[in-house]
């Protein structure tokens, strides 16, 4: 349960020729492993920029980012690619599966870039598809899968290299409410059963409430960072009888660390 992510005074300024646009104005943040965090914010708040930096797709203008104990702010493009490959998994709003490859080929792709053998790749991909409930759909093309199934395949792809963290950018944005719920419960499942750390970006507080911790970003800064939303939701579910009443929860120990 160590510290996985440590952001210290991260700034990101975009130079668009004539103007300098500040997207992040000094963000500091700590995430421990096994946390399920939601980052909320309106569009333009800087949440996407924050996500890009967390995902090593972009470098901060200043400040340090220590991921899994390593300072990644000044790494080369090549080294960042390796980190993304081995230690991160991405889930996108638009699923972003390669359209000309089958589900299993999509799922095994991170292993291709990790240098894993063909047979081993296929074996692990099929196992992962089972875990997300797509056991019989491995050879379907993305256009033969429903939105929810595509996102499950994307989740399988994100998990296949056993990453330290899953980064999900509006993962339910293109799904109906019922399927959204399914996917979010999937996230909860892999967080609770596999201890997978997840950071999810959303603009919707209801979706954010599926996570244990909600961080609100506004105008390039963190406005609030609490576990209140999750507590409320759990309380609602306990009242509805969805989940059994618990007098103590291992999750409680998270609350003190989140501050």
């Amino acid at each position: 349960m160590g510290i996985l992510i440590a952001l210290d005074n991260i700034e990101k300024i975009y130079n668009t020729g004539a103007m300098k646009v500040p997207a992040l104005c000094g963000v500091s943040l700590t995430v421990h492993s096994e946390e399920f965090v939601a980052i909320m914010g309106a569009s333009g708040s800087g949440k996407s920029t924050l996500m890009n930096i967390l995902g090593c797709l972009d470098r901060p203008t200043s400040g340090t980012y220590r991921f899994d104990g390593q300072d990644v702010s000044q790494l080369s493009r090549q080294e960042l690619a390796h980190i993304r490959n081995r230690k991160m998994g991405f889930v996108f709003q638009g699923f972003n599966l390669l359209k000309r490859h089958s589900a299993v080929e999509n799922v095994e792709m991170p292993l291709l870039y990790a240098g894993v053998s063909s047979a081993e790749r296929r074996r692990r991909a099929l196992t992962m598809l089972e875990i997300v409930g797509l056991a019989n759909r491995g050879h379907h093309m993305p256009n033969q899968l429903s939105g929810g199934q595509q996102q499950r395949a994307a989740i399988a792809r994100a998990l296949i290299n056993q990453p330290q963290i899953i980064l999900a950018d509006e993962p339910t944005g293109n799904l109906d409410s019922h399927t959204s719920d399914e996917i979010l419960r999937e996230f909860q499942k892999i967080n609770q059963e596999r201890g997978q750390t997840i950071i999810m970006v959303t603009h919707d507080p209801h979706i954010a409430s599926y996570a244990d911790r909600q961080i609100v970003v506004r105008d390039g800064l963190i406005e609030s960072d609490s576990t209140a939303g999750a507590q409320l939701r759990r309380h609602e579910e306990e009242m509805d009888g969805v989940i059994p009443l618990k007098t103590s929860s291992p999750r409680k120990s998270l609350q003190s660390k989140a501050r």
Partner: protein
Amino acid sequence: MSFFSAIRVALSALLVNKGRSFLTSLGIVIGIGAVIAMVSAGSGARYKLEDRLDSLGKNLILIRPGSRSAQGFTQDYEPLTRDDAEAIRKRVGNILTGVAESQITPRLVQSRTAVHGTQIVGSVPELREIRNWKVAMGRFYSDDDVKKAARVCLIGQTVRQKLFPDSTDPIGKDLNVGGVHLRVIGVLGEKGRSPTGPDQDDQVFVPITTMQSQLGARKEITLIVCAAKSENLLDRAKEEITKVLREHHHLRPGAADNFDVSSVREMAELAVVVTTVMQILIAIIASISLIVGGVGIMNIMLVSVTERTREIGIRMAIGATPMDVLVQFLIEAVVLALVGGVIGITLGISGAVGLSHLAGWPVVVQPGTVLIAFIVAAGVGIFFGYYPALKASRLDPIEALRYE
């Protein structure tokens, strides 16, 4: 990503749009195919030419009346005579295997059953040795026959087929040439076509005296044929012959020759130069086609990179390094070019075989040429595919993921 996987990824991407991939590689196919076919044709033609010249006799020297300008036109015509031939025989004979003056006219020849238009060659017995004629049946005419202007003749294989079609024995039979009867005393062995084209087996050989006295030919000599004893004596022989003839023709120093002395070897060397120049020209033209083909590949790869911007972004997000992306697209370009090269080589070889059958020269396809073609195709792929691959590798993943 392992090299082998990279090739498979590249191949699957190319197979997505087979039509486009094929059309793109067409430039390479044509360029390589043309080079292979034409280089092979040139080599085959040269081979055949050398073969023919060999059959003519490598150390042969031909002396003709009238000098020849660079373009091959006749100027300063002064006829050659038997005296000229005798002078050469006396003064240069020691380094020659023989001197044979010849007179050649076209005539109609009749046998009992057939008529055929052919060349009558009036000469001396030395002609047989100089030109390496084999006597298949009977005998060659002798010095005695020449002295007596005997009415005898030898016929070539083609003449025999035309005049004695029912394969009767021609020896002892009579041939009628313009009213004059000649008795066939021999049949020559086969020789085939001369390098300049005419069928060497379509000739009738008679003593030169018979030619001039009985067959109504003028006293002039068409040409004097002689052969140097060996290849290194060739140049010396030519010089001495020229000297002798200039004296005999009373040419003052500074005046141009009014005769032409050329060796068959010179003609062979000229032929080699001509065919080589043609091969080089064609190779240059084909190279232009290769460049155009390469530009085509670069163009299509640029389009492909733009089309697949989002895909590149996704690959980068899941861990493809810039090098992974560059290698992927570079391999696609190289595979395109190599497939074009292989098809081009195959078509080129087929073309070479087809041309050989049509033209009658041997199929000459050197493995070296094929290997070079292969390497050139790969080189074109690498060179023209590099820029698009570089562009792909430099895409910003975030921008690429946003691309529609």
